[in-house]
């Protein structure tokens, strides 16, 4: 038995879906990094620490699912805001459809097994 193998599915699953949860957080409006990190990085959430949202954002940006703009902030230095692109919105929509089917299939399998 591989140590930690029992929680392996969890980290695999998280890795697969967390990007889409970042996209979902941007659905209603643009946000800046700190804001996203705070809302997604709460303990018990999907992130392994608030800071891990930044590599995710960098990856989403490279894929052109999000784009960034600098905006002045009232007090401090300018902030980098993230906004969902058309492509990103489509990816999120496709994920949502797939996720619902996936969830139903897993629930059914678990119930039938019981």
């Amino acid at each position: 038995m591989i140590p930690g193998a029992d929680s392996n599915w969890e980290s695999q699953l998280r890795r697969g879906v967390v990007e889409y949860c970042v996209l979902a957080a941007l659905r209603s409006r643009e946000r800046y990094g700190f804001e996203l990190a705070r809302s997604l990085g709460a303990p018990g959430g999907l992130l392994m620490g608030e800071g891990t949202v930044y590599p995710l954002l960098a990856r989403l940006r490279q894929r052109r699912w999000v784009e960034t703009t600098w905006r002045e902030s009232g007090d401090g230095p300018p902030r980098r805001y993230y906004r969902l692109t058309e492509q990103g919105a489509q990816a999120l929509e496709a994920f949502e459809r797939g996720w619902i089917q996936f969830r139903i299939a897993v629930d059914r399998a678990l119930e039938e097994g019981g």
Partner: protein
Amino acid sequence: MDQRRLDRMVGRYLGELDRGLARLPPARRRQIREEVEAHIREARGEQGARDEAGLRQLLDRIGDPMEIAREAGADPGRRTWYEALVPLLLPLGGFLLSVGWIVGVAILWASPVWRLRDKLLGTLIFPFGLAGVSIFLSASLANTVCTSYGAAGGPMTTHCTGGLPEPLGLAILFILIVAPILVAIHLERVRRRT
């Protein structure tokens, strides 16, 4: 609480992040680094974090820098086999027609694993490693001239000039041999930490 001490703590955290991200393309690395830095600034402004415990808690919430690096795909756990050669090549590579040492220095400077001060240390203490030390020692011993004199059949007196004076010479000898070994051990520890 001393503000500078808190700044140093942040500096250490960001330094660790830099090393973790070292293998990423520069633009991606810069973006992540800037964002984490801005995050720390904002979080410190928001909750104060005026003491060490507060700042520690703040950094814990942001997460282990290596976890951030892993998420970035920088795979900080991955080490290349040739980096493992550096702590051997620097002290001993000089004996391989000195080419070994040069190869060791080239890998040392090309690798993101070591910081600038490690690179300087590895290069300057000492050029050509222990081979350089042995050349230096044999050169200084060659300067030693011993003359023996005394009456035939009587006790002989030997007097040596040049070379290294006794206690100082031993201390220098010790440093010359031990320093490159300590530097090699240090480089190995830094490599393993990454």
